[in-house]
């Protein structure tokens, strides 16, 4: 009787016979499946910060690299590949100094600048220690806000930051330039105080006396350069190599205007990181001054120190951007070609160690090919002995001495020609330091 009832159910169609699903059943199951949405039509690309290089000084801003969470873990001295750094705000400008980093956001909130790394000369301002309220931290392990003495903290925006060996500069849009850190050579733009103790100092100096608004600040090793809207350049700090360009080899403690070959020329970009400086004019000419021991300025003079800006007569086309490193220089022309000169690993293989005349790096090394002829270099940056180039496709190429893994390639060997750094996003800007780098990246989708 049970079997008969089952058979009657089957015949009525209430029980479905098992078997492989037919095409129609598969199609119906597919159409009935739920649709997931991971990104809406108005999904915005996110801005991220990636850091890599020597981490034991805290310059990468990840505390677990220096003091691991678990007792059995070993501290990570070097981060050889890009590592994402979580930041509260969108970072618009970053700068790497000698063992420390500054991050700045152009927000109107009260906290605009964060610093991490070495703070033995208060280059990150005063970071109050939690253990002893009177002393400051000597090593800052995670991005900590730097309190700037702004008059209108909820209106002023920070445009750019720059870091040198032991001092830093912060450029705002309406309140001039703020300097902090070591001032033993007057690089902070204030009078040198004998036997001043820089560690745990609260002093942040403000500079306002320029002929027009300052639009770019650049830190060399122990000197500072300021470029104003009118196209003039001011300098202060150590001058023993002529890097202040003021015609003498003494230190300058007040920002002073530069003359020489750039007098009357509208300068659109200045660059420096070691003891040599380069400036680019709006007409595409390059001017240089400072240390020339490594043939950086040997095209115009045999002397190893140049203390007045000199025009460098290179026939390479109109120059758009220049970057200065410790021993080598790099320029980018309007056509998108990259030229290097100086001493060290310049990017044309191990045979090219030094040259006084700019040599071009073939564009095929930056991803140019018959398949993608529109790929060109958009920006060039320099660390102390490394170079970085950003293409218009958002790719980052690095080369030079791989000091403590600062190239970010994942290997510890020096790189003699441009090599891609794998970053999960489109690289918008990069800041190079002595042994670490910071990049600002936008996600793909």
């Amino acid at each position, binding site marked *: 009787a049970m079997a008969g009832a089952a058979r009657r159910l089957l015949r009525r169609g209430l029980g479905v016979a098992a078997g492989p699903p037919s095409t129609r059943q598969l199609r119906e*199951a*597919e159409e009935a*499946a*739920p*649709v*997931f*949405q*991971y*990104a*809406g*039509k*108005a*999904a915005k690309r996110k801005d991220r910060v990636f850091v890599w290089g020597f981490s034991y000084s805290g310059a990468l801003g990840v505390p677990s690299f220096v003091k691991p969470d678990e007792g059995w873990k070993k501290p990570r001295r070097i981060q050889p590949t890009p590592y994402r750094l979580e930041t509260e705000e969108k970072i618009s400008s970053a700068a790497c100094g000698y063992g420390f980093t500054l991050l700045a956001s152009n927000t109107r909130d009260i906290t605009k600048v964060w610093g991490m790394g070495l703070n033995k000369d208060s280059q990150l301002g005063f970071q109050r220690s939690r253990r002893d309220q009177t002393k400051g931290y000597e090593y800052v392990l995670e991005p900590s806000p730097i309190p700037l003495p702004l008059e209108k903290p909820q209106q002023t925006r920070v445009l750019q930051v720059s870091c040198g060996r032991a001092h830093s500069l912060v450029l705002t849009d309406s309140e001039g330039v703020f300097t902090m850190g070591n001032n033993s050579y007057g690089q902070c733009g204030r009078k040198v105080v004998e036997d001043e103790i820089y560690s745990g100092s609260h002093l942040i100096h403000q500079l306002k006396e320029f002929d027009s608004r300052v639009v770019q600040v650049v830190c060399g090793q122990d000197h500072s350069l300021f470029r104003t809207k009118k196209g003039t350049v001011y300098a202060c700090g150590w001058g023993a190599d002529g890097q202040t360009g003021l015609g003498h080899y003494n230190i300058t403690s007040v920002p002073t205007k530069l003359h020489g070959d750039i007098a009357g020329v509208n300068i659109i970009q200045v660059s420096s990181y070691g003891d040599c400086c380069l400036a680019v004019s709006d007409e595409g000419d390059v001017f240089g001054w400072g240390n020339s021991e490594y043939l950086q300025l040997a095209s115009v003079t045999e002397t190893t120190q140049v203390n007045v800006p000199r025009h460098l007569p290179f026939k390479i086309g109109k120059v758009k951007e220049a970057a200065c490193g410790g021993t080598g220089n790099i320029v980018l022309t309007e056509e998108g070609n990259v030229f290097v000169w100086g001493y060290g690993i310049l990017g*044309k*293989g*191990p*045979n090219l160690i030094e040259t006084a005349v700019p040599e071009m790096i*073939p564009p*095929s*090394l930056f*991803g140019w*090919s018959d*398949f*993608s002829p529109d790929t060109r270099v958009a920006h060039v940056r320099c660390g102390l002995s490394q170079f970085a180039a950003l293409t218009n*496709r*958002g*790719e980052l190429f690095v080369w030079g001495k791989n000091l403590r893994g600062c190239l970010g390639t994942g290997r510890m*060997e*020096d*790189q*003699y*020609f441009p*090599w*891609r750094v*794998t970053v999960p996003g*489109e690289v918008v800007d990069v800041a190079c330091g002595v042994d670490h780098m910071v990049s600002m990246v936008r996600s*793909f*989708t």
Partner: protein
Amino acid sequence: LNAAPGRAPRQQVRFLPASAPGGGGAVGLVAARLPVLADHPLVRGPRFKKLKIGAGHRLDVKASGVFVLGIGHGNKLLTDRYNCHLTRVYTVGGLFGKATDDFSDTGNLVEKTTFDHITREKLERILAVIQGTNQKALLMYSNIDMKTQEAYELAVKGLIRPMGKSPPIITAVRCLQFALPEFQLEIHCLHETQQYLRKMVHEIGLELKSSAVCTQVRRIRDGVFTVDDALPRTQWNLQSIQEAIQSCQLKVETELEKTLG
């Protein structure tokens, strides 16, 4: 092949007895040319019983396109072509919105997603990154010391490629067509399998925060052999095969010489 006229049978000279003209009895010998019986096709059988055919790089059941075969002595050339490590070009068709377990549109459905946020620009950005990482892999697996001047010179010319075993590497990708939800890519690759290409389509879908399946994989070039040289099913006869072999002979020789030296 067996129907084609074969070689003429060998001839031999035999002395046959023949009756002398005008009268019986006396038997003279006449020289005559006769075919050797051992060469007769009914004795020897068909000339070609087996034919050695070797295949070039594998082609999936679900894929289509150029498939290189070597016949007889051509099999030796196949190993030489394998050692050349030349790139192959595929057109890969994809469909956004679905994810299946075997990455093709005939598999079991795993997930369905929205795809209206995808634009051609986003897709091309992802393709640029894929090319970049594969370019790095190309340099790394080529086993050349990066610190030498010759490595720099080869990198400038773009001639660095792995000359030994390596995982699949994509040398170039390009988006040919983009019409949501479908898209078509042209992929140049080395040491690949078709399933790897389908997996890549799936991963592109994941990167774009959606999902994708591969609808079509078609090989359009394998070394020097392009779709124009290939014989479609209607031309699988002796005449066309012979013509094709003749026309490609020179090309294959120059290609092997150029790469292997």
